[in-house]
């Protein structure tokens, strides 16, 4: 995972509630592999007409928001299907941070596992940020993970994050890599477990 220490970039406002993972990445893209990339799949039903031409009214098709790396959205962001492709499409498109009043559980977990920082932020603050972004398109948002601060124009605030997840993000550690640091503990457990339950340890087809 790419480490996340701080980030500064143009922010795009998308102040709708309940943006579900089907909308973030439609089911027809699920056949792709991670290597294929999901940048073009992001919000594809909002970004493109049926014939593939870009829609004119969608925020990410309007400069300077087309180069945004921070997304500011409505509450319950990422609800619905557990597909991790939703996080990959945001990340592949170039987003590093999503700010919203709340995030769906599974999406929240999936994001932090992929280096996409999600920042739960009170609704009133989100509203304020969105008005700033609309009034001054191209406004940048600066996020410092270590200090847990967000700065947008004159506005600044601090946010909460699980200390374990914070450390993984700062160091760019994936949970898997971190778990493997305890490999010897796992191995010790495994051998005891295997001895007390030999029927579980070595399944072989008859």
């Amino acid at each position: 995972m790419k480490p996340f220490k701080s980030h500064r970039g143009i922010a795009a406002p998308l102040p709708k509630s309940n943006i579900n993972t089907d909308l973030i990445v439609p089911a027809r893209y699920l056949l792709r592999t991670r290597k294929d990339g999901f940048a073009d799949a992001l919000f594809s039903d909002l970004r493109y007409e049926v014939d593939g031409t870009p829609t004119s009214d969608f925020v990410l098709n309007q400069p300077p928001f087309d180069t945004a790396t921070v997304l500011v959205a409505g509450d319950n962001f990422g609800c619905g299907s557990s597909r991790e492709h939703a996080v990959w499409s945001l990340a592949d498109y170039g987003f590093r941070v999503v700010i919203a009043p709340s995030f769906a559980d599974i999406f929240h977990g999936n994001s932090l596992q992929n280096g996409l920082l999600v920042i739960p932020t009170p609704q009133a603050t989100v509203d304020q940020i969105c008005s700033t972004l609309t009034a001054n398109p191209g406004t940048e948002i600066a996020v410092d993970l270590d200090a847990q601060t967000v700065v947008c124009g004159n506005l600044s605030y601090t946010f909460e994050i699980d200390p374990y997840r914070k450390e993984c993000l700062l160091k760019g550690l994936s949970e898997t890599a971190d778990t493997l640091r305890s490999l010897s503990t796992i191995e010790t457990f495994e051998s005891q477990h295997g001895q007390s339950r030999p029927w579980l340890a070595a399944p072989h087809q008859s």
Partner: protein
Amino acid sequence: MGTNLFEKIWTANSVMERPDGATLLFVDRHIVHDATSQGFDKMEAEGHSLRRPDLTFGLADHYVATGNSTAQRKPSFDQMVSRLDAESRRWGFDSFGPGSRKQGIVHVAGPELGITLPGCVLVCGDSHTATHGAMGALAFGIGASEIAHVLATQTIWQRKPKQMRVTIDGTLGQSVTAKDLILALIGKIGAGGGTGHVIEYAGSAIRGLSMEGRLTVCNMTIEAGARTGMIAPDETTISYLEGRDYAPKGEAWDRAVAHWRTLVSDDDAVFDREVVMHSDEVAPMVTWGTSPMDVLPITGTVPDPSVAGSDDERKRISHALDYMGLTAGMQLTDIRIDRAFIGSCTNGRIEDLRAAAAVVKGRKAQVPAFVTSGSGQVKAQAEAEGLDRIFTEAGFEWTDPGCSMCVAMNGDLVPPGERCASSSNRNFEGRQGRGSRTHLVSPSMAAAAAVTGHLADVRKFTGSRS
């Protein structure tokens, strides 16, 4: 204070704890399928390799072709299936694809092959992994990053869920099945009624179920929002497992059985929540809406949104009726259907096909209908018993094993606007294909609907009405 079944397995498989309160569980069985390739990609992208190929098993199910005549297949579906095969050869784990008698839906073939054993922690990248809990296992579905974690470490971080016990006592009425029990329970506690909990099923009605019936109950536990379902292993479980392909043999079997007999909740075990139901209350059930909790006995009528308890609920019901094309107050048995589907990980087992065939025998399908076995072994067994001929003589299609029309990912789909009586588990909008309308029922109820062309009370076909 005693401990319950869940706690016994949780404790036995706890490797360590993290300061944030998460527990690292050792995974005894990891099953991968043809829609979980992203997990392998992620594992490799992070530079890891498969740690325990001997505890990893592959089964192709979501994208496999079943030979259904209405399928709209794409070449990419076959690529997903061959991808699983390639991963299994690359990393050296056992995997079964189309053509193998052992292939089938993860949640049908896993127990049937003896991959799932009592007391094991089993995970798979599919929410219906809850099914395997019927064998006394702790089994749950996981996401792609978690799959990668399990592949690389054979462990998974979990927060301890709360525990709920659902006790169902009594005997089942005529033509009432495990599917009707679980639908009735979801109707009672709601689609979010189990959120944050693992459910242990107990009571004489549960004890009286066959292994197949228990798997059906645990399968749909996820539709009540619970993390998983479990049933303590007993003689039914043990005799089901004996001699299965991956089940222990000889001395290992005896040791295993001795251990499995200890896997019961102690008499004084405590649960965070208790729900009690009596099976006498349960009739053959059918869903009318777009959530599995939208369920009623077949003798009922389509509900009226205006009598809903809240404004939100009124809106939800109206929207569901709109989507389903139904009018409040109409008899459920007056709802005409366009097709019927018998299969899926809920009801694609031999007992399900026998029950459906008993209704179909000597009758004719009035609408396109097909039967998809849950696994190659189920299909072979059904053919040995002549069930395939009963279905085909009645005009049903008899297709190859897979998920098929349950999720429509392999191209087997219900066309837009059509109504399907289905033995599967989800009646969400678009689940069986864009614009499809699903009525969840038991396999014999799906058969009764197929031979009449409308939702029907199966009890009329199976003897005196109770």
